[in-house]
């Protein structure tokens, strides 16, 4: 198990009974009396051991302390309503990053995949072709080493390496610190290569315009079903290493079909970072994103100018 995040503890779902689908029950609306210990067993389906507590449904139990009293000197249990997203803090940093990028017309992509899918090679090839037309910069995320940033710098593009140490994903605060250090050009392309991990980065918004998931034909075509969160979070899938299709038993159509099951609006490009096959579609998509980011930024500037004009 990953010592940091518990990855590998695994979805505690041991098979699935055939036939009947196991639906989780609807959320309990009742509030438990604070002083009563419910007999939780340690099962996964915790919600089902909660007493529906219909008599308590929809309201809160203030004053149900040990003595059911408000008497001075007696401590009380209180239910305090919080209603906050667990990742709210990350999302606020991500929003700040998104605003920062939008203000400069920068089109940012968050590239996610398993280790070894060919992300860095794909980035190098993308930079190689695009850099004559647009400024490209890269943020590299890895647990350790600066190897990938060095590979990117060799193409001539500026790259900043973030080492997450034991961490299994980049978060928005890390990227927020990296942005001002990169001396990014207005209306440019920023490629963020996340830590090679098909699980954790799916949950963390970095402020990018799109997540791009990369699946290579040397992996299994069933990966979109085995790791659905990432394919659900992405807007684009690159099926990479297509030059190797004659040598591997990988059903590309099946892989795309599985990915579309998880995310019907996923845009798919079949590419080979080695031969450049299929890059026209991928680069065309980037160029339209760049144009939209620049136009959005221009609109923002015009609005500001109008406001300033008054």
């Amino acid at each position, binding site marked *: 198990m990953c010592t940091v*995040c*518990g*990855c590998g*503890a*695994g*979805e*505690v779902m041991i098979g699935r009974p055939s036939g009947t*689908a*196991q*639906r*989780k*029950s609807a*959320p*309990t609306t009742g*509030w*438990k009396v*604070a002083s009563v210990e419910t007999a939780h067993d340690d099962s*996964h*389906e*915790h*919600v089902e051991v*909660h007493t529906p507590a219909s008599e308590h449904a929809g309201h809160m139990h203030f004053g149900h302390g040990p003595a059911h009293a*408000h008497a*001075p*000197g*007696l*401590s*009380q*249990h*209180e*239910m*305090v*309503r*919080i*209603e*906050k*997203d*667990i*990742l*709210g*803090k*990350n999302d606020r940093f991500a929003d700040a990053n998104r605003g920062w990028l939008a203000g400069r017309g920068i089109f940012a992509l968050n590239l996610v995949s398993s280790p070894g899918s060919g992300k860095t090679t794909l980035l190098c090839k993308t930079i190689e072709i695009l850099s004559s037309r647009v400024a490209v910069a890269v943020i590299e995320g890895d647990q350790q080493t600066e190897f990938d940033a060095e590979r990117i710098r060799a193409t001539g593009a500026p790259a900043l390496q973030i080492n997450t140490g034991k*961490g*299994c*994903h980049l*978060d928005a605060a890390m990227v927020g610190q990296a942005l001002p250090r990169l001396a990014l050009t207005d209306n440019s392309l920023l490629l963020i290569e996340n830590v090679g991990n098909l*699980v*954790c980065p799916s*949950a*963390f918004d970095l402020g990018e315009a799109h997540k791009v998931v990369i699946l290579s034909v040397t992996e299994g075509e069933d990966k979109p*079903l085995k790791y*659905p*969160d990432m394919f*659900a979070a992405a807007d684009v899938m690159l099926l990479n290493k297509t030059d190797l299709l004659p040598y591997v038993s990988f059903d590309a159509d099946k892989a795309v079909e599985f990915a*579309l*099951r*998880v*995310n*019907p*609006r996923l845009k798919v490009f079949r590419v080979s970072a080695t031969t450049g096959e299929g890059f026209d579609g991928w680069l065309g998509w980037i160029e339209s994103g760049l144009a939209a980011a620049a136009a959005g930024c221009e609109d923002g500037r015009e609005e500001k100018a109008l406001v300033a004009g008054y």
Partner: protein
Amino acid sequence: MHEMSLAEGIRGIVEDAAIAQGFTKVNAVVLEVGALSSVEVEALRFCFEVVMKGTVAEGARMEVEAIAGTGWCMPCAKSVAIDQLYDPCPHCGSYQVQATGGTEMRVKALDVQTAPAGV
């Protein structure tokens, strides 16, 4: 997956609330976890216990209220119940189903111990 980061997020929310509302002990933290969210409850429970040490929520129970997954089926043009992101529409069998609900990971409420009144 990334449950340590999530547990730290919960700790931040609990500590902010403790400062804002002046309570000194948390008996239980009530979470809402969607069936389609990317959180593994048992891994989170493990991290929760570790991360809350030394805070007002040390030793607190972590209670989870599950939120059922829902999706929008494009062919049926209606909301349907799904358990997994890759589930087909239970009515028409199509995979053109976009998750719309059950992706949340929220701290819903805290069961807190308030200081004795009038002392």
